[in-house]
């Protein structure tokens, strides 16, 4: 379990530091598979069918289906292969270490005993949540933002597995379905946006297509 948490932290840092979209998608896929294995390891000893279903459906949806969807989206919409950051990759990594500190601080503040929840895993899950939030703010393209959303969800899932395994797995599956639909819609939306505006730069989405100056666009909204 420690190994999985360490890999989770490392994959988040890789996301912060990598400049290639394909690498980022693969890293998120690997995260999905890691998180799918997690409940099986956590429940070693009394694995019932619910846990198997949870693990396998996580692996299939987060590890295989969603990344595949993203890849298709990238291919069809001709998005640039590089990630375009607001915050550069070096500073992102620095922010990452700060976020790691924050995750550690929050975990210690929760005052759980290791018997109640594995602390390292909890830390890495919080870290994934923070990295997801950070990536959403710090990256320019819409596709990277939906990737960040997936990372955030991975973190939430990790915290869920940490806190209790008796969590009704129907609820987990429901969340999984929600995420799947969410990302599916995002992909669809991106595709249509791309058709309409010929770019997927969220920074420019505030401008309306017939009014090029941002100032007039704001007035239009008012």
């Amino acid at each position: 379990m420690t190994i999985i948490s360490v890999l989770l932290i490392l994959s988040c840092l890789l996301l912060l530091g990598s400049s290639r979209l394909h690498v980022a998608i693969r890293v998120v896929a690997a995260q999905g598979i890691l998180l799918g294995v997690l409940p099986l390891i956590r429940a070693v000893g009394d694995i019932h069918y619910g846990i198997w279903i949870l693990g396998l459906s996580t692996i299939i949806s987060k590890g295989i289906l969603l990344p595949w969807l993203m890849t298709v989206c990238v291919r069809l919409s001709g998005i640039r292969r590089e990630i375009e950051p607001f915050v550069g990759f070096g500073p992102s990594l620095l922010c990452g270490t700060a976020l790691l500190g924050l995750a550690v601080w929050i975990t210690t503040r929760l005052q759980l005993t290791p018997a109640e929840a594995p602390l390292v895993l909890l830390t890495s899950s919080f870290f994934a949540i923070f990295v997801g939030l950070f990536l959403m703010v710090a990256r320019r393209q819409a596709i990277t933002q939906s990737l960040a959303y997936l990372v955030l969800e991975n973190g939430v899932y990790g915290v869920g597995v940490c806190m209790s395994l008796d969590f009704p797995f129907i609820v987990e599956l429901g969340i999984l379905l929600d995420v799947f639909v969410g990302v599916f819609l995002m992909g669809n939306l991106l595709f249509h946006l791309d058709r309409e505006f010929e770019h997927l730069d969220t920074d420019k989405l505030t401008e309306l297509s017939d009014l090029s100056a941002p100032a007039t666009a704001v007035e239009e909204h008012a």
Partner: protein
Amino acid sequence: MKIMYWALPLAAWVLSPLMLGIINRVKAFFAGRRGPPVWQLYYDLFKLLQKASVYSKSTSMVIRVAPSVVLACMALCTLMLPWGELQAPVTFVGDIILLAYLLGLARFATVLAALDTGSSFEGMGASREVQFAALAEPSFFLGMLVLVLHFGFSGLSDMVSGISLETWHTSGVLLILVGCSWFVLLLAENSRIPVDDPNTHLELTMIHEVMVLDYSGPDFAFILYVASLKMWIFAALVVNLVVPMHSLTPWLQAPVFLLGIVFVMVLVGVVESILARLRLQQIPKVLLGSAILSLIALIVRLMG
């Protein structure tokens, strides 16, 4: 038995040039060449020692003293390296800090000598060397902190002799993380490829090599020899950390240790063959990454 304590430093002094030869052979193998003989560095050292040193008129005594200072520092460092359960000739509580600062002193002497030449290229190299060294320091000390927390604060020999299969079983993650972090540190400190190219001859991109352009004769032999000793020191740290020496029978420890060092050298050769040199702006990222590995190890140690 006291005699045996000196076996490791002696091995380091005699065998370290061979290790750089191994790296070059691995690189040649990957490039499809035959490559220089493994003993090449010995021939080079012998040739250089027979020559006389030439000093520029613009230099002072600093550049004359520097090679000796650097050599002395490295030789002292090798005295503090343990060999599995066999203790180092010099060991005391906190010797790792002395080790780190001896390496620092050696670097300081090199940098000072580079500035002494008055060459703008060497000044540039010195500036880079110091910048990257400052970034490399955290990963060394964070890794050390993990070891200290795990094995208690004592001499390096005592700490690493506690590493056994049992340690691997209970806290292998820590060893892997710190080991990886220190391997990156090894590449950075010895100006190996993802960070610096030891074969480059373009002054604008060089880091370490550019600082030693003005040495000649025996002085340059010292510098080359010191580079191989430094490689040995870092490789020995990594091997001591990663190989569970405690679980081996005593007579097996020495051969396994040497094999481990050869393995690290082969690994360095492979890394150099399959990776390209990074742009200068990317290097802090790598060093930061290595520090983060140690940081994660620290978190795992404190939380788990």
